């Protein structure tokens, strides 16, 4: 402790900015880790809390996937002896006409079916203010809103609020206000209650319910009741406690989690290198100090503990700073995640509250401390092993000993070969990660030798640019590879991550673009919402002939997409008119004959699966799939596997007639419209809008607009990836700034000697600049090369972790071209201040340095 106060604190004070820079790696690593976990947890908690609040005292919920089920099932459920109360529910997410209020979750409930008109919120009893319950039921424009929403928009009883309905925007009358608490806290108060039959009417749901909420008879066990209700309803239904619904949201966040986890880990690794570099230099700079301490009787252990103590203190500081930064950033991350889910799945954003759990604080600070200590272990060991006599002598300490170099090379060869084998020749995910780790460690071990080779190759170029400064810079780097290797390794790793992420983004973008070109080829899309994913509004089948009769329309394809529970996972069931689809937009077959699979599926003799569904479920053509429907299990053979990216959990494609028969549902989510030759899309769009806009909520998207929508969705994913890339670049920049500052400051004596023997200030300055640029150049060359390997590993990880998401290897040349000058410029900028300090400082002081 005394040593820490007397020596370490003085050193840190003297090198304040450098010490701060050293911490940046830990700060960033911990911040990304904390932001990711806190945001994900808050989003998950918000969804879960919302589900619980809406569920109230519900013990079990009966669902049959997104399409819902016929009303008749309600009586069946109500008649079961295990059931005390069975209340049907219809849910819809609608946009309001209220500025800045976003979407509103409409809960359609059977007011007469509840204990009291004021008791829908079973948690809080007499909580609702209702002007007249009979008027509420009699008038389909009645709505009950939360106090929060009423207050925010100065709405009172009998006030009016515009909502999007199946028949366009309609005004609703506020006939009740729910007092705060319970249900109304869901979605931050963006919730409203309607009569269920009015909700069916205004949202075009026909005579279907989304689910039935149940309370059990006294004394009935949950599991027993669940089994009995399931038996009574059949396998097409899911009978689950409300809490399990939250799990489905959790699975939506998997890819997001994967990317963030990867990045936070990488940031910590890069941070570790920055600390390693900084401590290695500190050990060298303080050799004489270590020598004196050893001569005065300090033990090796005390010296090692001194450096580890410094590292621990720095790690703690960095971790706490990272924790705070992560907490601040988590809100933005959570907003991004909820926005993504809202866009892709059409659900209302829940109100997220960021919180740091004690466990998260302990884990993140622990990770920061471990990283910091691990980084300081080798420098601390080197310090402890320092011979007191040699320590008091000046001289080169950065040169690699031939023996150490041989050991490094051998280890790199073994790890590299083993790693490559594991990455390329094994199937398991854990082996892949192990192989990836081996490859990265091998790359780091090779860094000094590789850096030396590249610098040797660059020497003539540097000499050609500036004969004196170029040679001096190259020779300095070659003479002390130990000094620059950590800088190069840190930068190389960061750049490799940049290339990996950017390549993955390019690969996935290319695949999605290919899919968009194949799938989204109709001239127009007629949808009930601005997006093609929102399924709150459905069209009646009777609209089809009307659309077909519009001048210029050649073919109309009806599409119904619903999410169903397949083996306890939500998958997308797509009901198409497959004969027409086969003619107009055949997909790319992955397994099976394309024509044959579409023929069989169109005849109702089979089902087609998306590539990711087949991989996730491990099914192949010929397998029999059991798809749950309200009419029972639909058993159909898998007749083909195609490339389809409509849903990350997988998609099944059946013919519309099969869907109509088994789901008793002839609704249409959107129409795909192909125009006659010569027909102008804009004119036909106008004609459709004119025909229907008076009596129906309807959006007509041109092909370009539909593509733009899909691109917007995918862009949201890519924006997240861009965020990761940005972090990686930032860490790389910080790494180079820190390392160069340290490195140049460390060479003050050497540079002063140069000046003392007659070198001009401009020559010294030029030497430093060129050296910095050379370090940047070497790092970029190695980083971009390692990036190829990183990209390969990342694509393998994605493919193995998310079956079906196998993207092509496309090297991101564009990003590489941007990174190149950015890093070189950063290296040069980073060297400006230390170079000026070196040439303008006192020669005497500089010569006394060390």
């Amino acid at each position, binding site marked *: 402790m005394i040593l820490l106060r007397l020596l370490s604190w003085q050193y840190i004070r003297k090198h304040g900015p450098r010490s701060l820079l050293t911490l940046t790696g830990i700060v960033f690593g911990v911040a990304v880790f904390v932001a990711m976990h806190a945001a994900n947890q808050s989003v998950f908690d918000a969804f879960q809390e919302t589900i619980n609040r809406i569920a109230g005292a519900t013990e079990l919920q009966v669902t049959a996937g997104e399409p819902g089920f016929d009303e008749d099932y309600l009586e069946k459920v109500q008649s079961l002896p295990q059931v005390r109360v*069975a209340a049907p529910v219809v849910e819809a997410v609608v946009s309001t006409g209220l500025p800045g209020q976003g979407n509103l979750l409409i809960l359609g409930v059977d007011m*007469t079916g509840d*204990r009291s008109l004021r008791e829908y919120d079973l948690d809080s009893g007499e909580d609702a203010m209702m002007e007249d*319950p009979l008027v509420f*039921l*009699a008038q389909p424009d009645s709505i009950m809103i939360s106090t929060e929403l009423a207050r925010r928009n100065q709405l009172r009883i009998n006030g009016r609020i515009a909502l999007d309905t199946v028949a366009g925007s309609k005004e609703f009358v506020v006939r009740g206000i729910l007092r705060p608490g319970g249900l109304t806290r869901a979605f931050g108060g963006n919730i409203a209650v309607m009569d269920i*039959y*009015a909700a069916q*009417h205004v949202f075009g749901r026909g005579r279907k319910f989304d689910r039935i909420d149940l309370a059990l008879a006294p004394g009935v066990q949950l599991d027993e009741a669940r089994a009995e209700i399931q038996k009574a309803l059949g396998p097409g239904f899911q009978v689950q406690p409300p809490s399990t619904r939250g799990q489905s949201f959790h699975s939506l966040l998997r890819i997001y989690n994967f990317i963030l986890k990867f990045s936070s880990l990488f940031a910590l690794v890069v941070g570790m290198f920055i600390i390693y570099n900084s401590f290695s230099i500190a050990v060298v700079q303080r050799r004489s100090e270590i020598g004196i301490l050893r001569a005065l009787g300090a033990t090796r252990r005390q010296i090692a503990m001194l450096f580890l103590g410094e590292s621990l203190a720095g790690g703690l500081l960095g971790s706490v700073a990272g924790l705070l930064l992560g907490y601040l950033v988590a809100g933005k991350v959570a907003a991004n995640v909820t926005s993504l889910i809202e866009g892709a799945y059409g659900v209302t954003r829940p109100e997220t509250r960021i919180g740091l759990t004690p466990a998260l604080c302990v884990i993140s600070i622990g990770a920061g401390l471990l990283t910091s200590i691990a980084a300081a272990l080798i420098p601390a060991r080197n310090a402890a092993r320092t011979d007191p006599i040699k320590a008091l002598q000046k001289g080169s300490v950065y040169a690699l000993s031939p023996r150490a170099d041989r050991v490094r090379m051998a280890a790199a060869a073994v790890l590299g070969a083993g790693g490559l084998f594991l990455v390329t020749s094994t199937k398991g995910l854990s082996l892949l990660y192990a192989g990836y780790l081996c490859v990265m460690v091998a790359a780091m071990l090779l860094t000094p030798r590789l850096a030396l080779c590249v610098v040797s190759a660059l020497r003539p170029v540097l000499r050609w640019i500036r004969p004196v400064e170029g040679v001096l810079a190259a020779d300095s780097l070659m003479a002390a590879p130990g000094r620059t290797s950590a800088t190069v390794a840190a930068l190389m790793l960061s750049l490799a991550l940049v290339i990996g992420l950017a390549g993955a983004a390019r690969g996935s973008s290319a695949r999605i673009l290919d899919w968009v070109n194949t799938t989204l080829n109709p001239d127009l899309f007629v949808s009930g919402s601005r997006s093609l994913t929102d399924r709150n509004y459905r069209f009646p089948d009777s609209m089809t002939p009307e659309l077909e009769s519009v001048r210029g329309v050649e073919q109309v394809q009806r599409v119904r997409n619903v999410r169903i529970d397949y083996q306890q996972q939500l998958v997308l069931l797509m009901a198409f008119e497959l004969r027409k689809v086969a003619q107009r937009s055949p997909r790319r077959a992955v397994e099976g004959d394309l024509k044959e699979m579409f023929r069989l599926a169109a005849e109702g003799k089979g089902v087609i699966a998306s590539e990711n569904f087949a991989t996730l479920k491990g099914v192949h053509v010929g397998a029999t799939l059991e798809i749950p429907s309200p009419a029972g299990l639909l058993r159909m053979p898998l007749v083909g596997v195609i490339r389809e990216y409509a849903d990350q959990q997988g998609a099944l494609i059946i013919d519309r007639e099969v869907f109509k028969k088994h789901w008793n549902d002839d609704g249409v989510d959107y129409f795909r419209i192909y125009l006659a030759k010569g027909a102008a899309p804009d004119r036909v769009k106008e004609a459709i809008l004119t025909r229907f806009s008076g009596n129906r909520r309807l959006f007509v998207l041109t092909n370009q607009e539909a593509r733009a929508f899909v691109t917007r969705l995918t862009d949201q994913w890519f924006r997240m990836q861009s965020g990761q890339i940005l972090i990686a670049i930032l860490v790389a920049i910080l790494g180079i700034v820190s390392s160069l500052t340290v490195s140049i400051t460390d060479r003050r004596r050497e540079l002063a000697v140069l000046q003392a023997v007659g070198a001009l200030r401009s020559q010294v300055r030029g030497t430093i600049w060129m050296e910095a640029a050379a370090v940047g150049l070497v790092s970029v060359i190695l980083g971009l090369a390692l990036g190829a390997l990183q990209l390969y590993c990342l694509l393998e990880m994605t493919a193995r972790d998310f079956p079906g998401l196998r993207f092509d290897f496309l090297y991101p040349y564009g990003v590489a071209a941007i990174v190149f000058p950015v890093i070189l410029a950063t290296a040069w900028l980073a060297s400006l201040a230390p170079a000026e300090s070196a040439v303008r400082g006192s020669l005497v002081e500089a010569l006394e340095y060390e």
Partner: protein
Amino acid sequence: MNSLKLCLWLAVTSSTLFGQSARDIVAEVQKRSQADSQRYEGLLQVIDSRGKTSEKQWIYERLGSHGKSKATIRFVAPAEVKGVALLVVSYPDRASDQWMWTPAINRERRIAMQDRRTRFFGTDFSFEDLEERDIDHHEYSMKGEEAIEGEPCWRIEARPRPGKKSQYTRSVIWIRKTNYTYAQMENYSEDKLIRRLKYRRMENVQGIWTARTLEMEDMTRSSRTILKLESLKYNLLLTDDQFSVQALRQG
């Protein structure tokens, strides 16, 4: 010995008298109010705890009585609820079936049996309160005599028979001795008084003594509902067809 026999006879007779007479009295009430059908125009006033009053009007028709009846309630005013109708089919051996018709969305809906304790459209009556109950749904016991508004009454306690569902654990009924009509009814959940119903403005209509004003007080909400029966008629010519879901739709 003789005095012992007299005591025994008195004990047996009095217990039998009190036990049977309570049920007999209720049976007599039902018998005297028996009519094949009924029709009236109801004026409903709901007065909430703050004194705010809202009014509704309906036409009530019933075919059959006391546990074996079908009844419709059609709202005629105010304009917002005009056309809303309710069909209640009562059975002697189980709870009634109820349907509601809402013309604005062209929909009928079934009201679940399990939710009969729900308030009847914002009034202080529950759906269960509006059912015509069979005498055999309850067990009765005499609790003495007490005057209500100056009129001598029997005080009888009714408890649901085992297997018969009710939101109330017991009811205390006051029956006028003069004409065998209900004077007041208090409904309890456990020991808590939930609702009190008063029968007022007694009139003899076609030989049936009928309360022309019913006043239900909800003790938990401090609100009350007054139902006035106008144009009351008994034993009209009504048919089964008029009491179906289809008829409900047709208005």
